[in-house]
């Protein structure tokens, strides 16, 4: 790398500066000075070139104090760097100048601090930087600064093959205690499978023995383990702490500004991006905590095709992705994957463990350091940024149809200090994505914090929590029905985690979730005085629960609690009763088919508790007694009220008050029906509907009003034929919940 090759454009400028030097010696001559001024003006056109020329030629040991020339040039380059970024050659020169320590380390670190590349960092410059690092001349802070710079600019290094070639040299710095975290991070980004060698693993284990289980060492070892599981026998904790910190604080603002400028120049092909991609902000933003990095930013166009790795951002279509599937090189900032649909496709089909490990690490860091424990800053900008980030995460998880484990860890922490309002839609959405939680700690991490929030918040929050839990249950069940078919009973919960779960464990967790929602809904309805909206969300949950056996082939039957059943049965809106009818219908279908299967297969695994049948029968009796038989409040209907008390209400015919005619929810239908039957009658006598055919007609009339759930319920549970026989008394007997009764237990 000769100077001439780097700076072809400097030849002219060099001549000028030589003349300049000679003329400078004679200051007193005024005419010369004027001539010099004129020359200066000419040179001002290429001041940066001059400055770079100076830095490439300046000798070691040039005095620093009072060296205005140096400071002038330094300022010039700094200004240029912060405004536009430096061209690749300029980066090379300045890095060389800083690393060779030709001035003091104060100057070197100043240079490093403003060394912002405009497009790319030449790989050779970084390699030379490392060779200077090997000289051990630099002071420790400068060494660290250099490493931080390399880490921050990693995405902009034009290619990494030569860096990978000196992997061994870089690895050798790992023994230095102050540099170790940074070196580990760099190695983490560079490591390929061929780099994992037994002696390196031994060295790392040795250092770990000395320094303790440092997260950065653990992360690197985890990556090694992914590549060569046979070499690393260490067991990794399943939930690892975020290993590496972001080191880009020094350059964060400048880089973000630069990135923004470059983004606005580019034209995106919008077809393959996810919906929530943010449009570049017009306003200048101060913090970029939660900005998802662009997919390996702005460069690589110069990249030659001879290299074996292909970067994701080079690909523009799905077909190209398929062609290059085996030679994809992952970007350094794994977060950039989130914003690219193509990258997500790649992640989804390749199931690359190291990619997931790195993505999880990046995400965990972003969520914890920047959002959870980040500076509390109420500005709408940072809130919007966080909201956007979380939305992006939500859509990514939906795309992949699974939650990241780092999101899960973050949610558990965040739930314990959530105010129930901050980013509510996104948080609940993310919460519904979490994979199955083992029943041993589901209470601690999920139920307790949620319960405290749920009961102290408004009814709308309660509704959204129930909705979230419904969706969570559905996702668990779907996952189960897919996995169970594939792998039989021994289900490994998540092929990327060490956790595996047996069917009974799964049942246990689901049972706990259903019971938990049962508590939430019944106490919630009591607190909110049977709020209709909450009731509907609760019924929505039980629609899923009632169908678990038939729809998701999960042999689990949990009845809805009385705290939901009776408010729904006595609700003032007909839709609740209709949905309740549908739920009871589905319960019946599920129980019946389970019983049949039980008889057929005599499998021990399918065991249904007698109490479920008993509960179901109680509800069935209550429902039929109330709606059909006009026997409200009579014994064995679930609600028993002493007659003396009922007398005091002064309702004349209280036992009828909740049948299909007098039920407050159906009253207006009854009146409507009455008017249509007897348009000429002025006095309304609803009891006349009960007589003879009118009753049948009325029921048919109700069915035409869209009460499909009710129709299913009645058709299955009530013997219509017997209704036709008895006149005046619509139905004496519901088809006694004959089949799924407690009497007929599986053993019989």
């Amino acid at each position: 790398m000769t100077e001439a090759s780097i700076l072809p454009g400097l030849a002219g400028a060099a001549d000028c500066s030589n003349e300049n030097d000679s003329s400078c010696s004679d200051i007193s001559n005024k005419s010369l000075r004027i001539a010099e001024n004129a020359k200066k003006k000419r040179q001002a056109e290429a001041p940066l070139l001059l400055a770079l020329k100076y830095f490439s030629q300046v000798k070691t040991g040039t005095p620093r104090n009072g060296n205005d020339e140096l400071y002038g040039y330094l300022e010039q380059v700094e200004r240029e760097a912060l405004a536009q970024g430096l061209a690749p050659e300029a980066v090379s020169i300045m890095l060389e100048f800083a690393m060779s320590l030709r001035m003091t380390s104060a100057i070197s670190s100043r240079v490093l601090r403003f060394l912002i590349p405009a497009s790319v960092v030449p790989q050779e410059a970084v390699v030379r930087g490392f060779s200077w690092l090997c000289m051990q001349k630099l002071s420790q802070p400068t060494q660290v600064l250099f490493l931080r710079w390399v880490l921050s600019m990693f995405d902009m290094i034009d290619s990494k093959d030569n860096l990978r070639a000196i992997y061994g040299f870089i690895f050798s710095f790992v023994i230095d205690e102050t540099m170790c975290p940074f070196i580990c991070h760099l190695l983490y980004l560079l490591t390929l499978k061929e780099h994992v060698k037994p002696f390196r693993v031994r060295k790392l284990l040795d250092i770990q023995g000395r320094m303790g289980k440092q997260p950065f060492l653990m992360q690197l070892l985890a990556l090694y383990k992914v590549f060569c599981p046979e070499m690393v026998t260490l067991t990794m904790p399943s939930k690892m702490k975020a290993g590496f910190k972001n080191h880009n604080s020094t350059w964060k603002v400048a880089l973000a500004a630069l990135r923004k400028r470059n983004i606005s120049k580019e034209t995106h092909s919008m077809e393959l991006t996810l919906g929530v991609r943010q449009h570049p902000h017009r306003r200048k933003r101060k913090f970029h905590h939660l900005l998802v990095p662009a997919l390996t930013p702005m460069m690589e166009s110069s990249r030659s095709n001879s290299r074996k790795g292909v970067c994701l951002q080079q690909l523009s279509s799905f077909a190209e992705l398929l062609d290059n599937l085996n030679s994809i090189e992952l970007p350094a900032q794994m977060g950039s994957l989130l914003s690219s649909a193509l990258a997500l496709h790649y992640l989804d089909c390749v199931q690359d463990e190291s990619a997931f490990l790195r993505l999880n690490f990046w995400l965990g860091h972003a969520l914890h350091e920047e959002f959870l424990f980040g500076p509390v800053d109420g500005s709408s900008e940072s809130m919007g940024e966080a909201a956007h980030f979380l939305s992006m995460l939500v859509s990514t998880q939906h795309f992949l149809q699974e939650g990241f484990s780092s999101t899960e860890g973050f949610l558990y922490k965040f739930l314990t200090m959530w105010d129930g309002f901050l980013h509510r839609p996104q948080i609940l959405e993310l919460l519904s994505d979490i994979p199955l939680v083992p029943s041993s700690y589901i209470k601690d991490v999920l139920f307790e914090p949620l319960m405290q929030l749920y009961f102290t918040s408004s009814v709308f929050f309660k509704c959204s929590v129930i909705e979230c839990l419904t969706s969570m249950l559905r996702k668990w069940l779907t996952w189960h029905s897919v996995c169970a078919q594939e792998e039989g009973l021994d289900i490994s919960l998540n092929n990327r985690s060490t956790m595996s779960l047996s069917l009974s464990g799964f049942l246990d967790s689901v049972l706990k979730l259903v019971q938990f929602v049962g508590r939430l809904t019944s106490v919630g309805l009591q607190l909110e005085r049977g709020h209709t909206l909450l009731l509907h969300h609760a019924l929505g949950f039980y629609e899923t629960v009632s169908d678990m056996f038939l729809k998701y082939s999960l042999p689990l039957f949990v009845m809805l609690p009385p705290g939901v059943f009776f408010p729904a049965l006595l609700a003032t809106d007909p839709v609740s009763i209709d949905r309740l009818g549908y739920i009871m219908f589905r319960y019946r279908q599920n129980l019946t088919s389970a019983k049949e299967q039980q008889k057929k297969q005599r499998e021990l695994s399918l065991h249904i508790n007698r109490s479920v049948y008993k509960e179901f029968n109680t509800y069935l009796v209550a429902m039929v007694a109330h709606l059909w038989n006009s026997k409200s409040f009579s014994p064995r209907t679930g609600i028993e009220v002493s007659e003396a008390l009922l007398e005091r209400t002064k309702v004349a015919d209280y036992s009828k008050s909740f049948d299909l005619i007098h039920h407050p929810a159906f009253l207006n239908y009854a009146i409507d029906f009455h008017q249509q039957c007897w348009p000429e009658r002025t006095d309304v006598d609803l009891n006349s509907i009960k007589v003879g055919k009118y009753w049948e007609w009325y029921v048919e009339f109700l069915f035409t009003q869209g009460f499909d759930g009710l129709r299913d319920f009645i058709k299955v549970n009530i013997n219509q034929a017997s209704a036709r026989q008895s006149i005046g008394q619509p139905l004496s007997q519901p088809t006694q919940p004959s089949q799924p009764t407690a009497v007929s237990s599986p053993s019989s």
Partner: protein
Amino acid sequence: MSLLFNIVISVVLYVCFTSLNMDDVARTLLQRTLRKIPTRKLEETIKKWSHLSRRQQQSLNYTQSKWILLQKLVSFCEDNELTVRHVSELEMIYCMENPNLGTWKACHLTDAEDDATSLDLMCFKEQFKSHLAELTRNVSIKIKKHENETIWIRIAWGENFIKPNHLKPTYVVHDLQTPYVFICNLSSKNKPLLYQTLVLATKHGSIKDAHLSGRNLHAVRDLLMGNYHQTFPTNHQRPLEEMSPPPTHPNIENEHKEHAEKRQQVACEAFGEGKVPKLETATYTLETRFRGGGSIDTLVDGEKPFRTVVQFASTSLLESLHHCVSSGIADAPVSPLLSSITQKGRNYFVITDKADR
């Protein structure tokens, strides 16, 4: 040791300054001064300085980078053949406009002579220059009158064989007919010289440290002269509407309202109201003995007084203290140690043990 150091320094300085010609000193001073002045203030200051021709001034482009601007200004000054005298004037202008760049120490003149009140500017100027010249050689003095009767004095100190060091000048600010002088950047070596000159020139008997210092000259001056909104202690409660925050809902009541009002009043009495002078620090040097339980033997040992320095620092100390008291962080009857900052106009206190007095 320090003497030796001084000598070494002076020799070095001597060598430096003799090796450069006058022009170079001026140029160094000019560059340093210009570097000190932020770009946004540069235009105004240059205009005030009025040593550049109108053409020159117009040709300056203040949106350019400072480094380029600086080069241009230096070349103009070279063209105009300006000397140290001119350049130090520029520095003085900037300093007078921005008096908050150094730490100002207040001094108190006492024992005024009879004719001290009739002193006029010309007389003072003459007296000051001649007295200081008598005491030491190679001093460069520049005296300017700022608006409203304030005299600004810039002194560049030299020594017998050393030319005045313009890079570290001392600034003195004095209002005629007041007993206070404010001094910035004075070395202890030159302190007696300046004190004596001041005493003689202002026709006073003696001068002593007022134990007050701060970065904001106006604040220091206001505090000493009592030029701020003071609240005097009263026994009767002040009317409510004066103090209470904007009216809130009638259903909201503060249990500690009276306490809060009282605290607010106490804070105002101690530290003033509204815009209080900006002080940065208050320092307490304690020279006390440890008393009390004998559990801590090491402290009781030897009956020797032990010294501690307690320093409160804030961007606006009085405001902070005010807030501390009004919000109840500090106890309500303000300690006289704190309240005497405003009452006595001091921010340096030595606290000695009563028994030692």
